[in-house]
């Protein structure tokens, strides 16, 4: 078995390469059924149904975005009523400054809701994904560069409770993985 990274450093995990989305999908189902926790599959594009194959729940990002949107909405309400009804009420074009003016406030409420939701969606996604993070143990493996091209990979991490370097590499081989490699830290 190959080893990459600093071979005297601790092992990050064991990775294997697969040739197509179908093989990766089947491998993921078996790894899930074998009860591993700390592992991931890597692909050039998102694979439909992979979340179920890996036994993962729906992303919680939607809930975060709801909170972000709510913040934007409340910000607009505060900004508009706070300034136009309380801090300096000013009647312009005959429009009232009380609650009856709310239709004229809708556009900005809408825009700020969208704006803060979008910020939450993007930065929340990066946060949940642990990005930006420019270094990673997997980048020690040269073949892993093909993950953004047309190859598929599985990596099982060493801190998984079921991890043992012998059995994991045999297991990945039995799933049809090739180029099985031990990834070390830098």
């Amino acid at each position, binding site marked *: 078995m190959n080893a990459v990274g600093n071979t005297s450093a601790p092992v990050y995990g064991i990775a294997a390469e697969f040739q197509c989305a179908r093989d990766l999908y089947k491998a993921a189902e078996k790894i899930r059924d074998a009860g591993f926790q700390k592992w991931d599959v890597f692909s050039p594009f998102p694979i439909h149904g992979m979340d179920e194959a890996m036994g993962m729940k729906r992303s919680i990002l939607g809930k975060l975005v709801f909170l972000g949107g709510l913040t934007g909405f409340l910000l607009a309400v505060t900004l508009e009523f706070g300034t136009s009804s309380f801090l300096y009420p000013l009647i312009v074009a005959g429009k009232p400054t009380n609650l009856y003016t709310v239709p004229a406030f809708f556009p900005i409420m809408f825009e700020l809701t969208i704006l803060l939701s979008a910020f939450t*969606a993007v930065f929340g996604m990066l946060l949940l994904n642990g990005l930006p993070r420019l270094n990673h143990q997997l980048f020690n493996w040269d073949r892993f560069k093909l993950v953004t091209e047309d190859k598929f990979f599985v990596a099982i991490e060493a801190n998984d409770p079921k991890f043992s370097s012998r059995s994991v590499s045999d297991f990945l081989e039995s799933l049809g993985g090739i180029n099985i490699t031990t990834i070390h830290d830098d």
Partner: protein
Amino acid sequence: MSNPTATAEHQEPLTAEDKQLIRPALVLNERTMGWISSYISSIVEGKTPTWWYISMAFTIPLTVLCLALLAYLISTGVGVWGNNHPVGWAWDITNFVFWIGIGHAGTLISAILFLTRQKWRTSINRAAEAMTLFAVVCAGIYPALHVGRVWMAWWLAPVPNANAIWQNFRSPLLWDVFAVSTYFTVSVLFWYTGLIPDLATLRDRCKTKIRKFIYGVLALGWRGGNRQWRHYEMAYLILAGLSTPLVLSVHSVVSFDFATSVVPGWHTTIFPPYFVAGAIFGGFAMVLTIMIPACAIYKPLHDLVTVNHVDKMCKIILLTGSIVGYAYLMELFIAWYGANPYERAAFWYRAFGPYWWAYWAMMFCNVVSPQFFWFKYFRTHLVWVWIIVQFPNMGMWFERFVIIATTLARDFTPSAWGMFHPTWVDICTFIGTFGLFGTLFLLFIRFLPMICMFEVKAVLPEADPHHGEAHH
């Protein structure tokens, strides 16, 4: 019962029902995932082609012209433009609405077609989104400078002035500030989010240290793990869901600038849907204007941006052009049926006043010219498509000119009437914005993947995890 002609080598002939289930391939010539990465990245990685320098030689002087004239305007005053009383909005707001409308097709392609699961969008959405951003950049120049003293533009931001008076949040002009700035920000976020996996592809293919550093930083360390993809896909879906009402709202808000006034010809409820349809109409014309030459230069892209794509975009142009045509006729009908003498006079003046040429140019370009797209021949022959879509490009500019200049030129009282004549600064600044748009787009083609590689890979048949298994 199995068909008697079926053997082990020959699969059973497809039944009529099976044939209906087979979808036409989105990517032609059975291109592989590796080919998609290599070809699209090679456009960015290869030597700069000569045509790129030649094109830049045209667009950079125009950009410089635009910036120089803006500097002239700022240093001298807004009077160097032809804006006057009564036509205070003149060319600058015409150009603003023109450019912001162009942007809308990009968001439509990236967001609305995504939500409606139109997979053919994957090969055009990146370039269309880039077009959106650059069009909004060109658009943003005009209202910012139109305020006259551009160094006071921060008054638009929600900060109280020296007398502790706040902005009027009930003003459509302030809605516009929020709508356009939100639109630009969300478009940038959407575009960049879509770029992350493709930037990782470029990072992983880099040979030189500088490129590795730049693309490496821009890719944010993307690894393509499914634990990342699941949040990523959710973020993309949410952004599409947010952009869809946003894009519809932006041009609605732009139309409120007119519709909430009491000026005859502006004060109509048809404006928001009519503006949105017109924006999509003009925007798709601009997408085709750009994509057809780009694919002619990079010929293998025809396997990704196929004639089928062009055909579909032409149909959208036909549909939205017809909606716009309906809106024009409905405006005329309501002007007559509404029996408001000012409204009637405004429309009579549009069609038969001194600006008649702009009105009929608009009618011809936006209503008559897209009718060619009823015929498949004109939708599938790229030279014809390119020629025909130039009419909507021009027509949508005339539409905004008709709405703004001719309406303001004839107000209620004859004492407030006046004509608008553009100055050379007006004309050259507008031409210059095309240079700015072109320069930004050429830079985009040169340094970023102009087709969304990971999404195109995902619509290949072998991307399906059940590919090759018997379906039930």
